[in-house]
C-alpha cells in the first residue's frame, strides 16, 4: 500500500503518494505549476527551471523534487512569477524566435508560457545568435534558432531496439542537438511526427506539413497553457498522429 504524504501549496492542504515529484503531485491536487522541459512519464531533468517553487522557504524545482511530509510549497507568488518570467525572457533572447514565421506558433509551449505570464517584451537584449537550419534529414527539419536545449527529444525518442536518435553535440554555448548520423535513416514518418510533437518549440519540424491548423484553432489560441481545458486538448491530440 502506498503511503500518503501531506503538504501544502500556497496554504492549500494537499496529499499525494510517496515518491511523487512536486510538479505531478500538485497537478493531482488540481494545481498548475508552469513547466517546460518536463514530460509526463519520463524521468525529470530539471534543466529549464521554469517550475521553480519555494519549498519551506527555499527555491527548488518542482519537477525533480519528491514530495515530503509537511512541505510548505509556494507557487503563485509575485516573486516566483517574476522569476519564471525572467527564465522565459532569457530563452527568447538567446535564440531567434520569429514567431510570426514559425510553424509551431500557437502550439508552442514557450510562447504559451509567455502568454500566460503576460510577457509583453523581454527585459534582456536580444543576442541574435547565428545558428544553423539543418534540413538534411528526409523527414525532419532541425532549426537550431528555436532550440531551447530542453533535452525532451533526447529523452523521449528512441528506436525500437532502444537506441537514442538525438544527442547533444559540443559544450557550453555551442551545445546543439544532433541527430545521430548512424541512426538518422531510422527516422520514420512516425518518429518525425512524434519528435515534432515532443519538441515544445518549433525546433523539430516534420517535413511536408506546416501551418495545418488555422489561427484560432491552435492549442493556445483561446486558453492559457495549464488550463484544464487545454490539458484535455493535449491528451486528445496525442491520439492524432497527423499534426
Amino acid at each position, binding site marked *: 500500500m502506498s503511503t500518503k504524504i501531506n503538504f501544502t501549496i500556497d496554504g492549500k492542504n494537499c496529499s499525494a503518494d510517496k515518491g511523487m515529484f512536486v510538479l505531478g503531485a500538485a497537478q493531482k491536487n488540481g494545481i498548475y505549476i508552469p513547466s517546460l522541459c518536463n514530460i509526463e512519464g519520463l524521468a525529470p531533468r530539471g534543466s529549464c527551471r521554469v517550475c521553480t517553487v519555494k519549498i519551506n522557504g527555499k527555491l527548488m524545482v518542482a519537477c525533480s523534487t519528491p514530495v515530503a511530509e509537511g512541505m510548505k510549497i509556494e507557487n503563485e507568488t509575485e516573486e516566483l512569477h517574476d522569476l519564471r518570467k525572467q527564465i522565459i525572457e532569457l530563452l*527568447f533572447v538567446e535564440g531567434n524566435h*520569429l514567431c510570426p*514565421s514559425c510553424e509551431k506558433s500557437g502550439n508552442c509551449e514557450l510562447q504559451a508560457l509567455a502568454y500566460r505570464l503576460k510577457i509583453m517584451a523581454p527585459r534582456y537584449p536580444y543576442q541574435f545568435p547565428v545558428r544553423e537550419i539543418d534540413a538534411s534529414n528526409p523527414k525532419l527539419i532541425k532549426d537550431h534558432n528555436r532550440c531551447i536545449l530542453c533535452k525532451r527529444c533526447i529523452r523521449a525518442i528512441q528506436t525500437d531496439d532502444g537506441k537514442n536518435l538525438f544527442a547533444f553535440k559540443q559544450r557550453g554555448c555551442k551545445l546543439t542537438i544532433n541527430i545521430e548520423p548512424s541512426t538518422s535513416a531510422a527516422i520514420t514518418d512516425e518518429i518525425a511526427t512524434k519528435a515534432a510533437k515532443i519538441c515544445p518549440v518549433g525546433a523539430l519540424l516534420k517535413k511536408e506539413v506546416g501551418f495545418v491548423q488555422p489561427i484560432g484553432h491552435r492549442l493556445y*489560441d483561446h486558453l492559457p497553457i495549464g488550463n484544464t481545458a487545454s490539458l484535455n486538448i493535449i491528451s486528445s491530440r496525442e491520439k492524432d498522429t497527423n499534426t
Partner: protein
Amino acid sequence: MSKPVIATASLAGCFGCHMSILDIDERILDLIELVEFNKSPVDDIKSFHKICDIGIIEGGCCNSENIHVLKDFRKNCKLLVSLGECAIMGGLPALRNGIPIQECLNEAYLDGLTVEKGNKIIPNDNELPMILDKVYPCHEVVKIDYFLPGCPPNADLIWDALVSIIKGTPMKLAYETIKYD
C-alpha cells in the same frame, strides 16, 4: 482639458500595425473624439507641431533614418509605445541579422534573380540612409514605455491599451489579445 495628442510612425515595418490601428473599426470615431493626431501617416502630418502625449512606433531600426525618426519621437513624445513584433524584436526584417551586410546587398542588387542585366549597382547616394549592421528593436535604441506584441497586434489590444493610457486606468490585457504572431 485639451485632448491628448498622438503621433505615429512606421520604421522598418510593413504598415500592418497601422492597419491594425484602423482595425478598431467604428471605435475610430470614438478615438477621434478622445484624441488629436499630430505627426502621423494617418493624417499625413510630416513633422511635429507640438509636444505629443503618446508616440506609437511600428517597426524596428534597420537604417540611420529609422534611428533619427525614433530619437525624434523620444524627444517629442511623453510616452512611447512599441507596436508589434518588428518594433519589439526586429520582426521579419531581423531575419537578416545573421547574414553579413555585404551578402544582403549583393543578393538584393547584384545577384538576385530579378535584378535587371546590365543594371547591377549597389545604390550609393548621399541622400540614401545608411543601412545598419543589423535590425535593432526600438527599446535597444531609446527608452520605450509600453509594448504591444503581435504581428500585427490585435486591434482590441491596441484599443484597450490606448484607452487605458489616455484615461489612466489599468490595462485589461485579455489573454486572447496578447499574441506574438
